[in-house]
C-alpha cells in the first residue's frame, strides 16, 4: 500500500490536477473561514459542480475543498474570534487571544502547520488501517451490515446530540425512514410515495444534504445578524515556529490519535475531535489555567485533531460505505454519483483507490500549507465580507445545486421543505448529522436486514451467533444503555461491589 501511495503522489502531478487542487483548497479555506459556511456545505455544493468531471478530477476537487474547509475556520477563529464552525470554536479560545496580543501571524502559522501535520497523520492512518478494515469487512454478511448501519446511526445520534441522546436517535431514525421512501429494491413495491410520481425513485441525497445543511444555516445566520463582530488589525511574521511544534510533539501525537479515532466513529466528525483534543491538551498541560488566555497548545491540539479526523473519517467511507463525519457523508454521496460503490469490494474493483485518496490528502496538505499561509493577510479582508450578502448567494447556489443533479423542480421544493423542517428540528435539539447518516445508510440497512433473514429462513440466528454481529449488537446495547442513568447507577454499584471488595481485601 505504501508503494502505491508513493506512486500515486507522483502520478497525481498533472497541471490540471494541481490547478484544480489549488482552486478547491482556496475555495475550501474561504468556505471554512467565512462564518456560516461549513465544510459539509463546501463539499456538497462542489459535488454538484463536479459530477460531470472524471472521477479522479472530481475527487481531487472534493478532497481539496474538504481539507481546506476543515482548516479554514482557524483564520476566522484567530483573526475575528468568531469561528467559522464548531471545530474552529476550540481554536478561537486561545488563537484569538494570541492575535489580540499581537501574535496573529504566529497563531496562524502554528494552526496551519498543525493542520498539515494532522492531515498527514490522518492520511497515514487511512493507508495503514484501511487494508485491515477491508479484511475484516470481507467477513461481514448482511447481518453485520445491518447492525453496522444501525450502530452508525445510533452512535452518531448519541455523540452529536447536545440536549439528550434520544433526540439524536430519533433524528437518525427519521433519516432511515426518509431512505425507505420510494420503490424498494427486493420486491419493487412503492413505499410512502402518496401517489407522487417523483417519489417513486426515492429521495435524492443532494437536495436532502443541501436542504439539511444550507437552509437552516442561512436562516440562523440571517436571523442572528445583530451579533457583534470584532477583529484584529494586522498579521505579524508568518513563518512556522518549529521549536514550539517540536516541544508539543507528544501533544500532537495525542491529538492526532484522538482525531483519527473519533473520525472512524460513524457520523461524529471534526467538531468533536477538536474539542476532545483541546480538553485533553488542557488536562495534560503543566499550566492548564493559561488555556483560554493565549496558550499555543490550545491552538495546536484542536487543529491537529480536526485535520487528522479527515483521514479517519474517510476510512469507514472507503472500507465499509459508512461515513465518519458529515463532510465524509457528502463525499460518500459524491462517490455514489460517480458510480463508485465504496465498501470492502472497492479494493478489488479499484485497487489503487485508497492509495489515490491518500495521495490527494497529501497534496491537499501541501495546498493548505502554501495557500493557507499566503492567504493569511488576505483573510483579514475576505473575512470582512458581510454574511448578509453571502447567505442569499448560498441560497442561490443551493437552488442551483439541487436543480443540476436531477433537472427537476421537485428536488428544489424538497430541498427547501426539508431545510425548513431541519431548522425546526435543530431548534428543538434534534441534530442533523444522524438524520443525514440515516438517509445515506437506510437502503443498506433495509436490504441487509431482509437478506440476512432470507439467508436464515427468518431465523435471528445470524444476528446472535456470528462473532462480529455479536460485538456490534453488544456495542448497540451498550451505547443505548450508557445513556440511561439507572443503568449507570447499577453499573457503578456492581463495580463497587466487585472491585471495592477486592480493594478492601488487598488493604
Amino acid at each position, binding site marked *: 500500500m505504501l508503494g502505491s501511495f508513493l506512486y500515486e503522489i507522483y502520478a497525481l502531478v498533472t497541471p490540471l490536477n494541481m490547478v484544480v487542487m489549488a482552486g478547491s483548497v482556496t475555495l475550501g479555506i474561504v468556505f471554512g473561514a467565512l462564518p456560516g459556511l461549513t465544510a459539509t456545505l463546501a463539499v456538497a455544493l462542489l459535488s454538484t459542480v463536479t459530477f460531470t468531471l472524471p472521477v479522479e478530477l472530481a475527487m481531487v476537487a472534493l478532497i481539496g475543498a474538504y481539507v481546506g474547509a476543515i482548516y479554514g475556520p482557524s483564520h476566522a477563529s484567530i483573526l475575528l474570534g468568531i469561528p467559522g464552525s464548531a471545530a474552529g470554536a476550540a481554536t478561537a479560545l486561545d488563537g484569538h487571544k494570541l492575535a489580540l496580543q499581537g501574535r496573529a501571524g504566529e497563531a496562524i502559522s502554528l494552526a496551519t502547520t498543525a493542520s498539515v501535520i494532522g492531515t498527514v497523520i490522518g492520511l497515514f492512518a487511512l493507508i495503514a488501517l484501511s487494508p485491515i478494515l477491508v479484511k475484516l469487512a470481507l467477513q461481514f454478511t448482511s447481518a453485520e451490515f445491518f447492525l453496522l448501519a444501525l450502530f452508525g446511526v445510533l452512535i452518531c445520534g448519541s455523540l452529536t446530540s447536545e440536549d439528550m441522546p434520544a433526540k439524536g436517535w430519533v433524528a437518525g431514525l427519521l433519516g432511515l425512514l426518509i431512505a425507505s421512501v420510494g420503490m*424498494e429494491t427486493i420486491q419493487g*413495491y412503492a*413505499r410512502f410515495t402518496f401517489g407522487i410520481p417523483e417519489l417513486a425513485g426515492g429521495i435524492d441525497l443532494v437536495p436532502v444534504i443541501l436542504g439539511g445543511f444550507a437552509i437552516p444555516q442561512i436562516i440562523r445566520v440571517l436571523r442572528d445578524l445583530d451579533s457583534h463582530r470584532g477583529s484584529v488589525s494586522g498579521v505579524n511574521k508568518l513563518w512556522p515556529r518549529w521549536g514550539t511544534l517540536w516541544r508539543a510533539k507528544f501533544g500532537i501525537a495525542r491529538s492526532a490519535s484522538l482525531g483519527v479515532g473519533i473520525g472512524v466513529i460513524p457520523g461524529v466528525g471534526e467538531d468533536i475531535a477538536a474539542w476532545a483534543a483541546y480538553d485533553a491538551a488542557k488536562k495534560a498541560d503543566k499550566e492548564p489555567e493559561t488555556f483560554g488566555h493565549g496558550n499555543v497548545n490550545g491552538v495546536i491540539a484542536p487543529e491537529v485533531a480536526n485535520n487528522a479526523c479527515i483521514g479517519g473519517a474517510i476510512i469507514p467511507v472507503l472500507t465499509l460505505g459508512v461515513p465518519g463525519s458529515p463532510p465524509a457523508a457528502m463525499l460518500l454521496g459524491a462517490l455514489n454519483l460517480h458510480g463508485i460503490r465504496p465498501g470492502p469490494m472497492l479494493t478489488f474493483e479499484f485497487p489503487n483507490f485508497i492509495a489515490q485518496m491518500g495521495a490527494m490528502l497529501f497534496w491537499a496538505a501541501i495546498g493548505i500549507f502554501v495557500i493557507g499561509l499566503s492567504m493569511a493577510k488576505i483573510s483579514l479582508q475576505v473575512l470582512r465580507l458581510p454574511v448578509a450578502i453571502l447567505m442569499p448567494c448560498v441560497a442561490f447556489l443551493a437552488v442551483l445545486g439541487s436543480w443540476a443533479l436531477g433537472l427537476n423542480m421537485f428536488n428544489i421544493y424538497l430541498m427547501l421543505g426539508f431545510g425548513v423542517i431541519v431548522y425546526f428540528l435543530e*431548534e428543538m435539539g434534534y441534530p442533523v448529522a444522524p438524520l443525514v447518516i440515516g438517509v445515506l445508510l437506510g437502503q443498506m440497512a433495509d436490504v441487509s436486514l431482509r437478506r440476512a433473514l432470507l439467508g436464515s429462513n427468518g431465523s435471528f440466528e445470524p444476528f446472535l451467533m456470528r462473532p462480529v454481529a455479536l460485538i456490534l449488537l453488544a456495542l448497540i446495547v451498550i451505547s443505548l444503555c450508557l445513556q440511561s442513568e439507572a443503568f449507570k447507577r447499577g453499573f457503578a454499584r456492581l463495580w463497587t461491589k466487585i472491585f471495592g471488595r477486592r480493594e478492601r481485601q488487598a488493604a
Partner: protein
Amino acid sequence: MLPRKSLRRADVAMSTGMILLGMSVIYAASGMPWQSTLTGGSAQWYLSPGLFPTVVGALLIAFSLRVLIIAIKEGGTEELVPATIAWLRGIGGNHRLHRAALAVGLMAAYIFLGIGRVPFLAASGIFLFVAIALFWWRDAEGGLLRTALITAAIAIGVPLLLSTLFTTFLYVPMPQPAG
C-alpha cells in the same frame, strides 16, 4: 436551540408528534404485502417491504417515548397553555423570529413564485437584490447609491456567472418558465 424550559415544552409536543408518526408508519407498513412467493417460499414475512419501516416505526415510538418522559419529568407540561399564549402574544416584538420568517418567505417566494414562472436569471437576480437589500442595507457602510450599485452588481453578476458555468462547462440547462 431554544431555552431549556421552552425546549421541554416543545419536546412534549414534538415527541408526541413523533410517536404518532411512528404509529402511522407501522399502520402504513401493515398494509404492505407480507406474503411473498418471490423465491419459491409461501409466507416469507422477512422479505416484506413493510418489515424495515415497521422496525424503524417501533424504534421511533420507543425513543420518542423516552424524550417525552424526560420532558414531562423536567416540567415540560407545566404552564404549557399560558406559556404558549405568552409566546404568541410576543410574536409582534420578536425580531429574530421576524428575520427568520423573512428569510424563509423570500426563499419560498423565489422557489415557488419565481423559478419556473419567470426566466431563471431574472428570478435569481430579483431574489438576490431583494434579500441583500433587506438584510444588508441597514448595516452597510457608505452611501445608498454605492450600496445599491454593489447589490445590483452581485444580483446580476452571481447568477450570470454561475449559470454560464453550469450551462457551458457542465451542460446543465437552467430551469425554463412553464409554457
